[in-house]
C-alpha cells in the first residue's frame, strides 16, 4: 500500500507537467527544455568534483580500511553499547551510497532484519544520508570552496543520529 503510493508519486508529478503542456496557455514545453538545459549545465560543473570524490571513495573501499578500522573500533563500540556489527555500515554511510547500501544488505543477511542491530541499521539508513557526497555536490555546484561550519555540523548531526537511533530502537522494540 505505502509502496504503491510512493511509486505513484513520480508518474503523478510528471503527468501534472504533461497536463500543463496540453491545456496550459503558455508554451510549457519550451519551459521544460530551458529548465532541462540549465540542469545539464549544473551537472557539467559537477563532474570534476564527482570524479575526485569517487576516486577517493573507491580507493577507500579497495584498501580494506573499513574492515581494519571496524576491527580496531569494535571494543570501543561494545563499550558504549553500539552493536559492533553496525561498524562497517556506519563507516561507509557518510561517504558512499552504493558502499553503504552494500554494507547494509550484508549486515541484514548476517544478523537478520529484525534483530537489534538490523533494526538500528534500518533506522540509521532511513534517517541519515551520504553527507560528504551531499555537501560536496551542493557546494561545488555553485563554486563555493570555503564551506565553513557545514562539515562539522553535518558530522555532529550524523553522530547524534547514530546514538539516537540505537537508543530509540532499544526502547521501541525490546
Amino acid at each position, binding site marked *: 500500500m505505502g*509502496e504503491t503510493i510512493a511509486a505513484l508519486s513520480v508518474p503523478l508529478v510528471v503527468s501534472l507537467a504533461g497536463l500543463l503542456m496540453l491545456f496550459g496557455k503558455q508554451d510549457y514545453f519550451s519551459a521544460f527544455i530551458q529548465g532541462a538545459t*540549465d540542469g*545539464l549545465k549544473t551537472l557539467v560543473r559537477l563532474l570534476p568534483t564527482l570524479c575526485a570524490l569517487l576516486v577517493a571513495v573507491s*580507493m*577507500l573501499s*579497495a584498501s580494506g580500511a573499513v574492515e581494519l578500522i571496524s576491527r580496531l573500533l569494535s571494543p570501543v563500540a561494545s563499550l558504549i553499547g553500539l552493536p559492533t556489527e553496525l561498524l562497517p555500515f556506519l563507516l561507509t554511510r557518510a561517504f558512499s551510497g552504493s558502499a553503504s547500501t552494500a554494507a547494509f544488505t550484508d549486515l541484514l543477511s548476517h544478523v537478520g532484519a529484525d534483530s537489534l542491530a538490523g533494526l538500528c541499521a534500518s533506522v540509521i539508513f532511513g534517517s541519515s544520508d551520504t553527507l560528504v557526497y551531499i555537501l560536496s555536490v551542493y*557546494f561545488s555546484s555553485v563554486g563555493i570552496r570555503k564551506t*565553513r561550519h557545514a562539515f562539522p555540523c553535518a558530522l555532529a548531526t550524523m553522530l547524534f*543520529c547514530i546514538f539516537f537511533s540505537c537508543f530509540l530502537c532499544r526502547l521501541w522494540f525490546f
Partner: protein
Amino acid sequence: MLGKVFGVLCLISLITAILSGNVVSLGSAVLDGARSALDVSLSLCGMMCLWCGILEVLRRAGWIDKLSRLLSPLLRLIFPNAYRTKHGIREISACISANLLGIGNAATPFALSAMEEMQKDNPDKEKAGDEQITFAVLNTASLTLLPANLLALRRAAGSDRPYAILIPVWITSLACTAVALLLTSLPRLLRLPLSGKGARTAAKRRRR
C-alpha cells in the same frame, strides 16, 4: 574543504592498503573510481534534465509559488533571508515537498537549483552563506515519509515486519532535523564567525 576530505581518504587508504597487502587492488580502484564518476553523472544526467525541466514548468504555472506560500510559516523562520529576497525559497519548498513525497531523485536537482538561487544573495561567492549551510546540512538529515528504498531492502532481506521501523525512522529524522537546525543556526544566532580568518577580518572591520 573537499580537498582535505580527499587528502584524508587517500592517506587512510594508502596506509591501510600497505598494512593489509591490498596495494595491487588499490591501483585498479583509482581507475574504477574515475570511471564510476562518469557512470554516476550519466545516471544523474537524465534526472537533472527531467526534474529541472519539470520544476521550470511548474514554476511558470505558478504552482511552486503556491507551494512555498503553503510552507512559508516554517520557511520564513528557517531561511529569513531567502524568504525576504525570494531567491531560492521556491526551490527550497519544491525540494522539501519532493523529499516528503519520497521522490528522492528529484530532491538533488531541486536542491542544486536552490543553492544556485541562494548564491545570488551570497556576498562572498567562494564562501558558503549561512542559509546555504543550513539548507545543505538539513538535507543530510533526509526527512522522508516513505523511504521506499529502505522498505524494499528490508523486504528483500526477509524481514517479517518491513514497516516496523517506519515510526522510529520518522522520530529519528525529526530529531536529527532539529539538531541540524540548532547546530547550523548557532553561529548565526551568536553572530560568531567560526573560521579563524573570518573572525579576524570581522574584528578588523569593527576596529575601523
